[in-house]
């Protein structure tokens, strides 16, 4: 019996509710002020972000022209930091402009077919105001971290005059005050962003990679592989992490790399369990069986079919993990085991300033707030992603 092409049971086409109007003159406006056309059509999140990035970066360019120029000149002996900052500045400006220009000129119609789970999750995410706020916060944080050499008013590790500039409260000269070495707290907080963010990012990168691999292997192969791996996980979980951290740090020199490595190598258990659980249930799903029936190799099944399908929860876990790691680094600093001076990390700054909480509140309060808001941003994004990636929780 011949069947009509497309079948009688096709999805009915529904106009997507958020279909946008095409903006006239949007291109022109976006060329001058990226983000403005998006704002005009009521897309405040995207518009404001683009505008903020554009204006902020321009302000840096103008106000800090001397430093930017110093970084541009090849002969000036600019450091790697400066070059990275320069690239960030240029790339950021270009990205804001190009995105806004192209976005404004695009036919404003949302695709409603061929939309992947990721895009759907993205749409759900973009409707979660707090999560978007967090995402914008993270964007700004990374920009700040990368642009630290242009933004910071002073050299973060240069000692000031110990007799006169020590522990100066916030003032116009030092917006966030100075520490016990007469160093500018603002500059240190700005530079500290790089340390804290990279610790979070790299350590979680390591742990998520290990966790996903081991979890997928344990879940997929099952039997003794699973038993052995899960015993190891049990052991690592029950192993007092702090004992390990302290001993390792005593054995080796406490360097930032060691801290990243240790944090990365001890936090994978959660991801492993998560991925294993997901894989165990996925393994029974028929599309994985089908992949086996189609003669796909195990590696292909694991990496092209299992892993992409557990990526959602893993990304959520990673986002939340970055926040946790930043807090953990701060906690380690409390025990004197964090990033060591003179490298400015937020954790070390909070921990070092804590005994002067009453005399010089600005020492630990500002880096502390930096930690709180960074971790908050990551957690908001993580929560938003969790809701967005889980179809059951979507609204």
């Amino acid at each position, binding site marked *: 019996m011949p069947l009509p092409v497309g079948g009688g049971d096709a999805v009915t086409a529904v106009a997507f509710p958020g279909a946008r109007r095409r903006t006239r003159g949007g291109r022109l406006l976006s060329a001058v002020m990226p983000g403005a056309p998006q704002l005009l059509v009521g897309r405040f999140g995207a518009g404001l972000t683009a505008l903020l990035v554009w204006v902020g970066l321009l302000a840096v360019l103008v106000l800090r022209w001397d430093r930017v120029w110093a970084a541009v000149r090849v002969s000036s002996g600019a450091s790697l930091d400066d070059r990275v900052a320069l690239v960030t500045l240029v790339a950021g400006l270009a990205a804001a402009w190009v995105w806004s220009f192209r976005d404004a000129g695009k036919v404003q119609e949302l695709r409603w077919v061929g939309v992947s789970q990721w895009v759907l999750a993205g749409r759900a995410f973009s409707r979660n105001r707090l999560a978007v706020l967090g995402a914008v916060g993270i964007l700004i944080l990374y920009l700040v971290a990368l642009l630290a050499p242009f933004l910071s008013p002073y050299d973060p590790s240069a000692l000031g005059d110990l007799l006169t500039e020590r522990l100066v409260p916030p003032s116009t000269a030092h917006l966030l005050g100075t520490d016990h070495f007469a160093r500018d707290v603002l500059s240190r907080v700005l530079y500290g962003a790089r340390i804290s963010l990279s610790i979070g990012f790299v350590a979680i990168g390591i742990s998520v990679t290990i966790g996903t691999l081991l979890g997928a292997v344990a879940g997929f192969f099952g039997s003794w592989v699973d038993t052995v791996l899960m015993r190891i996980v049990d052991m690592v979980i029950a192993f*007092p992490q702090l*004992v390990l951290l302290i001993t390792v740090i005593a054995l080796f020199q406490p360097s930032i790399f060691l801290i990243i490595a240790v944090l990365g190598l001890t936090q994978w258990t959660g991801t492993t369990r998560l991925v294993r659980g997901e894989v165990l249930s996925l393994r029974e799903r028929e599309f994985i069986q089908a992949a086996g029936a189609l003669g796909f190799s195990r590696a292909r099944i694991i990496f092209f079919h299992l892993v992409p399908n557990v990526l959602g929860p893993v990304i959520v876990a990673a986002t939340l993990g970055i926040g946790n790691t930043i807090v953990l680094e701060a906690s380690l600093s409390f*025990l004197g085991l964090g990033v060591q001076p003179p490298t400015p990390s937020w954790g070390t700054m909070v921990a070092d300033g804590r005994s002067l909480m009453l005399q010089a509140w600005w020492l630990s309060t500002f880096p*502390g707030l930096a930690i*709180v808001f960074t971790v908050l941003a990551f957690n*908001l994004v993580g929560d938003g992603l969790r809701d967005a990636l889980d179809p059951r929780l979507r609204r």
Partner: protein
Amino acid sequence: MTRYLIRRTVLAIPLVLGIATLLFFVINLAPGDPTQLMINPSMRAEVVEQMRANFGLDQSLPVRYTKWLTAFVRGDLGYSYSYNQPVSQVIAQILPNTLLLSGAALVVAFVVGVLIGIVQAVRQYSLLDQALSFVALFFYSMPSFWLALMMILVFALFARNVWDWPIYFPPSGTRSVDFAQLGTWDQIVDRARYMVLPVTSLALVLAAGIARYTRSSMLEVVRQDYVRTARAKGLRERTVILKHALRNALIPVITLFGLYLPVLFSGTVFIEYVFGWPGMGKTIIDAISLRDYPVVMGTSVIFACMVVVGNLIADVLYAVVDPRIRYE
């Protein structure tokens, strides 16, 4: 169930032994030994040697390991170099402190967390939901020692010295110095007063996580058919939420109990430090820097056991609340 419990317990033994062995070598590989920390030019090198001999540190690592393992298997945790007491006695003195602190924190955290989670789920995406999310996450995002210090500043120092609040709390310790002279009721009040700040600091962080979990678990359950059915039957919303949805929503939350134990115990380290609360976490850290190996081993093993037992309890609880799960 009994068989299941026995099997799990038997399975935990090699786990704990493995952890202990690993620990033994990890901490014994660290340079330095307890005698080096007592350094002082009046102390002759021979004296140091004598002390090492008195501690049995002059033996080789495998010998020490064998000795330690045989003693451990017999339940002897050894002798602390720094407390000059059997390790078991040291643990007996500090473990109750930690259990009290973390137990109270756990209870507070679960009660508060579940309540917040329910409110959030019932009013999903409302302003209240988002505000609670934000506040919970705000506390969750704080390094616990910082939160603890803030608590001390606000509820001990400023409350008493600056704002002159009628209620303030002592910044540190487990009881007042005149505790022994108090009557029974006053003793209870006294201990409770000293527990407020540390327990709150510890619980706030946990509660945020529990709230998030409860919220998503509730949201999932609320969409289930039986909840709809209950609604359709015309039951009051309160009954639907509390009687039908909550019970099922709590099932995944219970697994958090096992998951949170390690978090809780490492969290207590910082809380114990800040509040001068003599407990396991602080003892471990001090013992490591004093190279008091027997105490490190003893406390860590106890810690590992508690995590294992905690997971077991979580599994059992899981079976209790979820009739679908049967352990043979």
